[in-house]
């Protein structure tokens, strides 16, 4: 089977940077992403009153802040313009298991202090009411959102609902080909996957043209000029008189193309 996959071996052989078995894996990828963060609005100074109120809130909704990235909004805050002040605030918040990572709406001094304390200064964002956040945010929701969505490929099979006429070629380049109608003599139907013909096949049918040896050809009535799967073919001359002709499938068995009736 390895010989049927020349693409894979050639990449390893000719990759000049190949230093190990996993040389084809890229060392880094850059992707953009969005995340939802909680903004903690600090009114006045970060004093006892603030921390007491915060502890109160944490007791009421212990799960609300769990795992949630947190930004401190400094629009109405006083002080916090020195590195020490900022570091103390961060230490207090992290001591309460809050994952603070940045500030927003701070003045220049506050931004500098935040940078020194290892926080990033974000442009001010639109605030969402905390009630709404409470309702929509559930434990683990942020973690779920972090999973990048898989790209869903467009449907790759092709459906033809008209007869395929002499001289026409229909090619399903990324999957199965389904034909509701007949395939005329002199017509060609080609697919990288399986070929289904709900009608009489009089022309040529080539399935698994990219080398897929498991591809099959199904048809209601077989009168083909040529049948091919993964490059192995039979012409109408090679199809013996004992070949079944109605409701048949063609498939590869080892290196042999077989035509059998669908019971």
């Amino acid at each position, binding site marked *: 089977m390895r010989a049927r996959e020349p693409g894979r071996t050639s990449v390893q052989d000719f990759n000049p940077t190949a230093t190990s078995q996993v040389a084809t894996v890229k060392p880094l990828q850059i992707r953009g992403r969005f995340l939802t963060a909680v903004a903690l609005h600090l009114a006045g100074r970060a004093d006892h009153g603030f921390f007491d109120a915060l502890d109160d809130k944490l007791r009421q909704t212990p799960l609300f802040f769990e795992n949630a990235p947190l930004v401190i909004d400094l629009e109405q805050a006083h002080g916090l313009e020195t590195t020490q002040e900022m570091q103390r605030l961060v230490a207090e918040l992290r001591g309460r298991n809050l994952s603070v990572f940045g500030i927003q709406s701070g003045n220049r001094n506050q931004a500098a202090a935040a940078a020194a304390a290892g926080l990033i200064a974000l442009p001010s964002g639109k605030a969402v009411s905390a009630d709404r956040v409470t309702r929509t945010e559930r434990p683990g929701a942020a973690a779920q959102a972090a999973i990048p969505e898989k790209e869903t490929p467009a449907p790759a099979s092709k459906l033809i609902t*008209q*007869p*395929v*006429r*002499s*001289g*026409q070629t229909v090619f399903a380049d990324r999957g199965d080909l389904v034909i509701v*109608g*007949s395939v*005329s*003599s*002199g*017509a060609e139907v080609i697919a990288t996957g399986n070929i289904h013909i709900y009608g*009489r096949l*009089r022309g040529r049918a080539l399935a698994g043209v990219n080398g897929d040896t498991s591809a099959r050809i199904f048809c209601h009535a077989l009168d083909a000029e040529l049948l091919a799967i993964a490059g192995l073919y039979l012409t109408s001359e090679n199809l013996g008189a004992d070949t079944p002709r109605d409701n048949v499938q063609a498939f590869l068995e080892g290196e042999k193309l077989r035509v059998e009736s669908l019971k």
Partner: protein
Amino acid sequence: MSKVIVVTSGKGGVGKTTSSAAISAGLAMRGHKTVVIDFDVGLRNLDMIMGCERRVVFDFINVIQGDAKLKQALIKDRRLENLYVLPTSQTRDKDALTKEGVKAVLDELREEFDYIVCDSPAGIERGAHLAMYYADEAVVVTNPEVSSVRDSDRVLGLLNSKTFLAEKGDGSAVKAQLLLTRFDAQRSAAGEMMSVQDVLEILAIPLLGIIPESTSVLKASNEGQPVILDDTSGAGKAYVDAVGRLIGEQIEMRVNAGEQKRGFFQRLLGRTA
């Protein structure tokens, strides 16, 4: 609302021009104002079948190139009041046809005529392509033999993909119907010729009519008379039925429609035709 009907086949010699002449004459007999256009540039035949070859002054190509007005090139039939012929050039070739030119002529004809019958040349090249390009309906002329059927199949594929209606991409398509010509019921029954069912199974389009093989067709051609005007001919009667179906009438399909029953002695002597 006028209709452009192309008479086409792919293969040559199957009876396109005979059928174009008969169908256009049949439509005119029923009172529809009809024009038949010869698209076979360089091999002008339709004018002879229609019996107006001596009256050709200007032709289709002159009109396309602006050398003559459409009115000057149209020839009014002497037998049928509603029938006109637009002959083609014998000296030019298919390159003289342009998509824009054909469209301009057809648009002008659409304003005046109920039916515009386009007699396509054989083949699938420029002449045949432009004959079918602006068609609303197609009459696919086929003989009951394998090469003709395969060529007709190819033409049906082109009608579905290379015409104005198909290229519009809004799901509209040229309505194609099969006219089976030169059919011999006895030879078909004996297995020497394809049967109607065999042809229909391969082409998968509605059957417009079955025209029996008949000596009257050659005789009519030589006389410059559309065979449909010969009411003693089986072929002529079959064309009358086919024209009726073309305009939407329900007419029962008869093989060898109206062919005279042969007498006892004729049967003893075998086929006279």
